[in-house]
């Protein structure tokens, strides 16, 4: 069974068509990255999964449960870590976690797990502090604890590391990896593409409400048709002939970087053309594309 199924979902907000027939599936126990530029429809999709937004048409299921018809079980299957640092200023951390567990139908029996969560997220010292006394990083941890308090099989992290320091980011990465290892399905939206590259196994890129790519991360990276050839020369080269100039992306005193088509530009032929300029190649290396380049390529193509 898929952790998430989205089929032909449309959603319009006034004049803006946020989702245009979006379909995708997220396998159980996967670490899934949901990427897209601002306004792509990521937050709308997450809102629909969590019951915060209602789709105009289409079908959405979480762990097999329809988010409209069977909303109780769908919501019980999902934990959402919202992007904004939102909290109820009236309550302490422990009180908030107990309330959140209660909303999900768990009473006192959730208390041992709440204590465990406080330890897991290094929040024991802050358990009886009011939320407004906590730093941004600590508030972020509380949001994660709130999302996990009912032990949902699917956890959605909406930009979890936006604006957090390096130490907390590392801690959050470690926690998400642990949750994944324990069998949770993780859905991550992020603007830090290296984060998605480091954590996610499978990635969807959406743009203007449409799916533009959905693949395993490695396959997605391999699908990108370009790679970079970086050369260091013994001296500054003369003017480049047109075929080389067309592929040049960066030029230093003695350095040239070419963007090569993986299939149409054999490296040997390029090297021969450079040597024909009367310069010696001192060093060379190839750079495979990063997710960022794939992302830019695909979203630009879709636009």
């Amino acid at each position, binding site marked *: 069974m898929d952790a998430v199924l989205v089929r032909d979902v449309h959603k319009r907000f006034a004049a803006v068509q946020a989702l245009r027939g979006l379909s995708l599936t997220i396998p159980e126990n996967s670490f899934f990255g949901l990427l897209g530029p601002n306004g792509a429809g990521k937050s709308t999709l997450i809102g629909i999964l*969590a*019951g915060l937004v209602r789709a105009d048409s289409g079908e959405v299921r979480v762990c097999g449960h329809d988010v409209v018809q069977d909303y109780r079980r769908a919501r019980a299957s999902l934990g*959402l870590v919202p992007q904004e640092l*939102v909290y109820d*200023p*009236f309550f302490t951390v422990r009180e908030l976690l107990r309330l*959140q567990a209660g909303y999900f139908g*768990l009473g006192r029996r959730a208390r041992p797990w709440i204590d465990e969560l406080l330890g897991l997220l290094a929040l024991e010292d802050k358990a009886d502090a009011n939320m407004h006394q906590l730093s941004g990083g600590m508030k972020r941890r509380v949001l994660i604890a709130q999302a996990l308090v009912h032990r949902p099989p699917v956890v959605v992290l909406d930009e979890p590391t936006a604006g957090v320091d390096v130490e907390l980011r590392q801690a959050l990465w470690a926690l998400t990896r642990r949750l994944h290892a324990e069998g949770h399905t993780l859905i991550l939206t992020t603007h830090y593409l290296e984060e998605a590259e480091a954590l996610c196994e499978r990635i969807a890129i959406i743009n203007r409400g449409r799916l533009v790519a959905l693949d395993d991360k490695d396959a997605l990276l391999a699908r990108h048709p370009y790679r970079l050839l970086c050369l260091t020369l013994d001296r500054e080269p003369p003017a480049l002939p047109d075929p080389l100039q067309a592929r040049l992306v960066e030029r230093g005193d003695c350095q040239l970087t070419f963007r090569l088509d993986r299939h149409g530009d054999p490296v040997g032929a390029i090297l021969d053309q450079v040597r024909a300029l009367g310069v010696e190649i001192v060093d060379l290396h190839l750079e495979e594309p990063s997710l960022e380049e794939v992302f830019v390529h695909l979203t630009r193509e879709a636009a």
Partner: protein
Amino acid sequence: MINWVGLYTLFAKEVWRFLKVVTQTVLTPAVTALLYLLVFRTVLEDHVEVYPGVGYGAFLVPGLVVMTMIQNAFANSSSSLIQSKMNGNLVFVLVAPLSSLEFFLAFVGAAILRGLLVGVVVWAVALALVDLPPVHSVAWLLAFSVLGSAMLGVLGVIAGIWADKYDQLAAFQNFLILPLSFLSGVFYSIHDLPPFWERLSLFNPFFYMIDGVRHGFLGVSDVDPVLALAITAGSTLAVSALCLALLAKGYKIRH
């Protein structure tokens, strides 16, 4: 199937919320009501007798009790909702497996409880200041107090989900709730009004709940308490149906 634990938790959270700021939510409105009582009673006690044998202070207390009760019931649900919307923390309730009915019952239940609590405090302190006769009928008193608080608690939910900012909520409160409660016979009997205003008062649903509470306290009222109860219950049901429809639609809270 009802999520009883979820319903109770949301109700308890709403009660807990106002108890955490009890000075602001219970004591302050009680003091305000008592100031009204002191001023109007001092000025009018020897000049006005609304019902034969009932002093103006005794006449005023039930009206002030119910006015304070309903204003606080409204404030409880409306302020909690608008704050949760503005802070963004309403999301934690919206992602939970709670139905519209459970959401409604929790907010309205807490509003009723705050209304009754503030009403009891006003009444208890008024006992020390005014020579009040024994309560005529606890059953009538409770019926009108609970229904009145419920109606205003429901209106508070409607206002809370409708308002996008505090300013809009203040407009709802100041241009609708406050005039309806002040012009409902708290300070006078509608029979003392000119015919046009007397007839107009009959279209104010708040008049019936205040008249009904006065009947519960004193055993005297402007209209038959059975009619008042029917109109209060009908009005509460009508606003409840509207509120539930808005919640089911996700009006302004689920986009």
